[in-house]
């Protein structure tokens, strides 16, 4: 299968510390087809952002180890590129939308300058051409007065507008893959919905593959076709969104789903929560990492690691999956 827009093969990330290796991403593999969105969900500290940064090659080189059999974009391996080669890929073939647009945008340049700089870096062109490309990308994300936004500095825009500007910047070169890391988490619901709508529209136009990282399963359901559930650096479940919501197989996925508060006309039953918290990477439990918090745990779970089939469309790493 060479038609995957993004194919990650056996990716691992670890921190080198005095007390040895701390595994934060543990041999994960997945792929996304062109024009499709895949959600990567899990609680904070599960390695979601580390996965994204490792794919892009943005992790620091000292103290952090990354290994991957391959990371392919449209069949081209980017895992072993040097810095200069990587710069040619970032922004053009693969782009990232960060969680905090306030800190990801440069405060001393206008929005227009920052967006056109991305395009100029990869394709060059006259000032006039760049300006037009930049305005087009702003209009594409839904700004009707693009010129005004282009000449604004980041602090002059609201959080939602900055996030849209970030999307404009990420899409200006029509990348093959976009990684959106908690990119709507800090926004309120109405803004969130509209941003997702814009992202979806752009995806339809350009057949972009999107990896949507979030702890918010409700949002993933809204915009993704497939979903990967991650816990302590490992993938626990891979399935399509529909099946996850109708019958999640892994107890962790089911737990995450039950945490989402629902809006209903009748007073809802008390919300249920997964007991405990994500263990730190220093003292990961043996066997299945989720075992200590799992309601379906049995002795086997603490001794051996359940197998996760990385080829199948639906896979679950659990000895006692919910059927």
């Amino acid at each position, binding site marked *: 299968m060479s038609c995957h827009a993004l194919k990650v093969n056996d990716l691992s990330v670890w921190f080198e510390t005095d007390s040895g290796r701390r595994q934060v991403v543990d041999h994960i593999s997945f792929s996304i087809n062109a024009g499709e969105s895949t959600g990567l969900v899990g609680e904070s500290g599960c390695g979601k952002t580390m996965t994204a940064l490792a794919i892009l090659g943005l992790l620091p080189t000292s103290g952090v180890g990354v290994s991957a059999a391959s990371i392919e974009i449209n069949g081209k391996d980017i895992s072993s590129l040097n810095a200069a080669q990587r710069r040619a890929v970032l922004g053009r073939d693969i782009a990232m939308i960060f969680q905090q647009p306030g800190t990801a945008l440069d405060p001393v340049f206008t929005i227009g300058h920052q967006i056109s700089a991305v395009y100029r870096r990869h394709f060059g062109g006259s000032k006039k051409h760049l300006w037009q490309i930049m305005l087009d990308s702003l209009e594409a994300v839904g700004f009707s007065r693009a010129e005004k936004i282009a000449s604004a500095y980041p602090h002059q825009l609201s959080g939602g507008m900055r996030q849209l500007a970030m999307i404009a910047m990420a899409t200006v070169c029509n990348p093959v893959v976009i990684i959106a890391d908690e990119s709507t988490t800090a926004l309120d619901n109405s803004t969130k919905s509209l941003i997702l709508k814009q992202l979806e529209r752009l995806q339809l136009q350009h057949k972009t593959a999107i990896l949507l990282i979030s702890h918010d399963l409700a949002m993933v359901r809204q915009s993704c076709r497939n979903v990967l559930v991650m816990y302590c650096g490992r993938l626990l479940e891979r399935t399509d969104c529909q099946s996850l919501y109708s019958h999640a197989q892994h107890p962790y996925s089911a737990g995450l789903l039950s945490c989402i*508060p629902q809006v209903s006309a009748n007073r809802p039953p008390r919300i249920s929560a997964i007991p405990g918290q994500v263990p730190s990477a220093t003292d990961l439990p043996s066997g299945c990492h989720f075992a200590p918090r799992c309601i379906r745990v049995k002795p086997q779970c603490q001794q051996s690691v359940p197998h996760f089939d990385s080829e199948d469309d639906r896979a679950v790493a659990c000895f006692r999956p919910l059927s």
Partner: protein
Amino acid sequence: MSTPTPPTKPPLLEVRNLSLSFHQQEQVAIDRVSFSITAGSTLGLVGASGAGKSSIARAIMRLIKPDSGEILFKGKNIFMMNSQQMMATRQRMQLVFQEPFTSLSPRRTIEQSLLEPLQHFAIGDTNSRQEKTRQIIQTVGLDHDVLRRYPHQLSSGQQQRIAIARALITSPDLLIADEAVASLDVSIQAQIIQLIQSLQEELGITLLFISHDLAVIRQIANDVAVMYQGQLLEQSPADTFFSKPNHPYSKTLLSFTNNKAPTSLPVENWRLDRGRTTAETTSNCVFARSCQVKMPICDQLEPASHQIQYRNQHPLGPHYVKCHLYEEVNTNDT
């Protein structure tokens, strides 16, 4: 069950006609807002970012001074209090912020942070204070050994539990939670919601719960107040609100929670209005610009807040709507 007696409990907190403008930015933050919370109940205050929700929380704590209006806590206007009286009142009301990490001092251990309110209000002696920190840490579901740690050594969920413990340690009557679960993971959010619910049952605390997330409000609140650009547009018992919202803005908000975004809304409309400036007159409805069912009158006349009359059912409490659509209904009914 069958006796429809009107609520006789006096409100713990009453906000009357509160207005506040930030003159430097020429922005209207709060515009003639009135509401009250009965002792032991929870009011959910909802609205988009910049609607003025946090300003209300701050005004109630008297951290900012409003231009006009009154805030009555147990029947006494807090703006008429001298500093001694205010200090005594502050002990009775506490605020939990959105970001647990920034609301805890990084240089103090958790125990020091928890002891501080007790020392400040001179509650108990050294021994009983330490005993109290131990109790409160259990109440919020944490282990004693976190007392010796620093905030950075705790997870965000643990930090928020500490922030709640710190607010509860003076045994307040009123707890204001300003987006207290917004920055947390869904799983941690569920844990904190559970905690707040059980604490309220145990301690009978009154809660002003501020959130932009209607699903969270649905879990926690008895009553709902909807805020938009500084004004309260609808106020009703939660069950009524979620089964039959009246104001067009409430309906819009609810439609977002069902994961349906309006496709036609141009970005500029909802984005660029970051509140109203003081220069803008209030001779129209604040929501008129974005309203789907706008009538000509909405641009000309500001609607008053009408109480919806119910014929058949006994309302759980009064239901107010600030919209021209409901004026006629009201006059017909009465």
